[in-house]
């Protein structure tokens, strides 16, 4: 029996109750998964003037930029409902939050439109040209 026969089911109806949460993509790896007091220690130090976002994180100044999801696209955070006991079982995930934009933070260099993730937002256009059906 192939392990590829099990699938991961996304319960999309959970999107209706999903939170709208702020997302920050940080320029460092945090070796932790779990709760953090973001609104207490991070969010209040975000400064946004003249479209220049800055924040101080652990004594390091970071430069940020808002990144919007491409038109026609929605951001989702999926969370596993319950881990199955074997790899033969299907996994189930639900939508825990939805977002339309997130803030990308860099170290010294201010994020520009050349930035990878920012550029990646153009991918749907390209994908459409590659994958759209050929008519006639």
């Amino acid at each position: 029996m192939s392990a590829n026969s099990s699938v991961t089911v996304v319960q999309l109806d959970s999107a209706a109750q999903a939170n709208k949460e702020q997302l920050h993509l940080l320029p460092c790896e945090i070796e932790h998964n779990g709760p953090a007091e973001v609104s207490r220690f991070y969010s209040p130090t975000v400064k946004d003037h003249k479209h220049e976002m800055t924040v101080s994180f652990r004594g390091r100044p970071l430069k940020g930029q808002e990144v919007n999801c491409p038109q026609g696209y929605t951001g989702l955070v999926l969370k596993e409902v319950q881990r199955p006991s074997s790899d033969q079982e299907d996994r189930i995930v639900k939508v825990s939050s939805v977002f339309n934009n997130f803030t990308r933070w860099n170290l010294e260099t201010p994020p520009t439109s050349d930035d990878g993730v920012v550029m990646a937002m153009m991918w749907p256009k390209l994908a459409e040209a590659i994958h759209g059906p050929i008519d006639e």
Partner: protein
Amino acid sequence: MTTKKKRSPPTESDSWVLIAPDSVVASRKTRDPDATFVSLRNPATDGGSQYLFSNGDMQVFEVKAFSEDYRSWFIGQRVQRDGRLLYVTPVDPLFLLLPYLRKAGAEGKFQPLQQVVMDEDYPGCMRLLSCTHSVDSLHHVADEKEVGSMKFHRYSQEKTMEWLQKKVERIVRMLKKSDISVGGGVKSSTFIRVKEENHVTEVDYLCYAHGLISEYISEDLSKDLHKHLQLPEMSSPNKAEPPSKKRKLSDKPVEAGEDYTKFNSADFARKPPKKMTAAQKTLAKVDKTGMKTMSAFFSPKVKQENN
């Protein structure tokens, strides 16, 4: 130099950040409100990749992971160590059906589709038959015969080449009118239009589009297409690609690893890197000053922040 602090091995995440078409999210209002990640045979690598089916298997999407080193998320009041952004975009189901049709086509017989699209390793491939633009688009790549209410198909190399050529032409049109035609058009904030400077030729566009398509077809089909498009012979690249960047964003499909929910792309390999694929060779030949490879397209222009 400070000594590098050892990172603990990544623990398995139970949460993922992704960007998906509105239609996927909207399908929750349909009769079939669930979407499903399924492992299917990747037509370019022959290995497994993750695909997402939604709307009662009527739509199929590929999943790409954009990952950089040293990234993590804050999601609301939570930290997520895995800093990847997963991208869900439509994939043409014909690309995924093509390997099965070609394999069956080797026998030269007309066959019913249910007999052709079977895969012990990837039983999920059956779902492809429910997709719109799969069965009713087969005439692009196969000869059809109808006997009574039954339909039979036979792979056609000629038709496939024409179909792929139409795709290439559409990509070229799209690249030309878009900023990303020349790697975003924006090389720096000073906005230099590399396009005009370097006289990007028609052939450059074709080679670039051929490279993009080659991410979705087998290597030999990619070579055939290269010939069909009458693209110049591949010579050894005169401009070597800069050594692989440390900070790389992956444009690679999400690999179905042993734990397929890892969505890992780091250890993905099309073939051992000793040999360049046809697409890579083609791209290597293209004048890179005005063009970017897919991976470069998704890479930041800054070299590295930490050197």
